[in-house]
């Protein structure tokens, strides 16, 4: 049986991303491990109440992992909004939206009714897109 454990998004600055995903979005820190000898920090966050799925907030590495030109391209693609989308679901889109707005999240889409539910969207500090959707409960077909 396959399960999703972690999925990664590129972030421009890990401290800034951590503050955004915890203080503003309301997620919890799952792992924050720095390996100084490698100059690497494994940083993951996830929604409270869903302990087995996390988002990895991955810094864009430099050489030798990634040459400078590639790293610059990845940073730019992320800033241009083309790197990643995380699809979140919630029981109450409007309430979650209002909570996050009060905490300073800038939404690109306010909650709107769609055929599959109520859908809103925002970006993290680096430019990654996040959707916030309250799905309609369809009877099993």
């Amino acid at each position, binding site marked *: 049986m396959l399960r999703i454990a972690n999925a990664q998004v590129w972030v421009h600055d890990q401290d800034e991303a951590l*503050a955004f995903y915890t203080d503003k979005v309301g997620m919890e820190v799952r792992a924050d491990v720095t390996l100084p000898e490698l100059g690497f920090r494994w940083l993951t966050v996830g929604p409270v109440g869903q302990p087995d799925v996390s988002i990895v907030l991955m810094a864009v590495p430099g050489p030798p992992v990634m040459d400078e030109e590639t790293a610059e391209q990845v*940073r730019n693609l992320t800033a241009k909004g083309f790197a990643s989308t995380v699809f979140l679901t919630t029981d109450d889109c409007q309430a979650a939206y209002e909570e996050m707005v009060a905490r300073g999240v800038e939404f690109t889409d306010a909650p*709107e009714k769609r055929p599959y539910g109520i859908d809103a969207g925002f970006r993290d500090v680096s430019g990654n897109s996040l959707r916030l959707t309250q799905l309609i409960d369809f009877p099993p077909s």
Partner: protein
Amino acid sequence: MVVDQPPARHLLRARDLADRRYADALSVADMARAAHLSPAHFSREFRRVFGESPHRYLLTRRLERAAALLRTTDWSVADVCMAVGLTSLGSFTTSFGRMFGKTPTAYRASVPPAAAWAMVPACVLRANGRPRHRTFREDA
């Protein structure tokens, strides 16, 4: 906390503004303000980063939204035109025809029923539905 972000992040903020406020009387100058750049510098930088002018992006976003309204509502073509922030029905019909290859009315008649794609996330439809720009006439 102030962190140096790639300049593209500010341009993305302006593009997000076009996606969010296309229905209003939004102008390229408004987009430039969102990116904290002068209009001339903004248009140059936007084109360099996204490969098209902000004016063209805004126009094709409005046409994409108009196409979505034609698919999913029974509104008149004039109402659709106004609902996406365009004020001239004649220009709208001309631009729409050039980019989608048919009139708004013919487009509406040609598409499968809304239920066929109702389950695809709206953000995905919006991202992929913007028409390819066909001439540079609107780019003035």
